[in-house]
């Protein structure tokens, strides 16, 4: 394949990847927003379902992992919560809100693991 053809293929794939990614993020965002609405009404299991769907649709969506972690915390599934926070920070390591949530989580989690101080 000539250099020109390779460049054309690359350009085409970049042009098609952009809208596809935006579609995925848009669909995932819908799930995340609905999850927030139901969580605010106390329906945490439904929220978990929505946020899990969001991470399946867009596996790099940090907000979805963050919310999932919060929901797992609320349900007492602390190992899953930790994994979800770590995933969220993997995609947005400088997000202070996720960091703050994770710090608060660790405070509780450490309390359950330590035998006193």
């Amino acid at each position: 394949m000539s250099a020109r053809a390779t460049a054309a293929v690359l350009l085409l794939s970049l042009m098609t990847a952009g809208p596809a990614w935006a579609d995925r993020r848009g669909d995932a965002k819908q799930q995340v927003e609905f999850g927030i609405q139901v969580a605010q009404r106390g329906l945490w299991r439904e929220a978990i379902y929505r946020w899990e769907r969001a991470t399946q649709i867009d596996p790099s969506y940090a907000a979805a992992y963050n919310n999932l972690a919060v929901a797992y915390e609320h349900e007492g599934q602390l190992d899953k919560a930790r994994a979800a926070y770590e995933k969220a920070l993997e995609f947005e390591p400088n997000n202070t809100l996720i960091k703050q949530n994770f710090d608060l989580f660790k405070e509780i989690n450490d309390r359950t693991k330590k035998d006193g101080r």
Partner: protein
Amino acid sequence: MTARRKTVASLLLALIGALAGCTSYFEIPIETPISPKLDISAFQRVLVAGFIAGGNDEVDGNLETVRLLRSQLRTKGNLRVIDAEALPLAEIAAQQTTDDAASATTAPPASPAETAADHPALPPIKEEKDLEAYEKVFSNVEYWKKIGEEHQNPLIVTGTVLFTSHERAGFVQREQEVYDSFGRRRVVPVRAYENRKGYILRPQFVFIDGRTGQTLHQETFREEILYSENTSTPALSSFFELMDRLLPTFLNTLSAQKIKGTRVLLK
């Protein structure tokens, strides 16, 4: 309303709407359930037996701890709390040591050097190392089994409580009012070196199976509080303040707890 005011109001509304639309995070209250550290399904009753206490003469660490833990377990625990006289555990431990020493003198000593002189009367409890000699009582399985039998095999809560006075000098930051040349008031942080005094609470909780006399679990804590040198705080009130900090963790050993908090959900 004038046309200009209407324009300003509509602009403000539009701005608020736009801001609301941009909101990408939501604070939400959560309650994290924490499962108990100890499986207490085999017990229906709990006996807060007594504590080896020392440090500060103003507070009876044994009686106050027994009262506090019983009242907390009554309201926040699932076990029936046994009402019984608090054991004078320091005296019991001292007695057991004396008895052991007496039996050591009648039995042939393990080594020529080992005599009753190796077991002098236990020291008054002023600091942490003084407690060591008393702590043998917790491994006296027969003693705890007997206590268990007397109270229908409950879970036994006992331990040590050391509550001591404490002083430390260091830098303290506080806010101070200042007025500039125009008489305007400002509050600025000021660092000052000062002596502070307070208390340290070091409890160790020991959980014993009343059926076997064996220790199931033990936890040690350390809490400290310091006040300005001019503040006069009664020792008993500091004792409860420090106990209050560690009670949730103590209770979580025996029963599930829900820890309230706030988290942020993101869009």
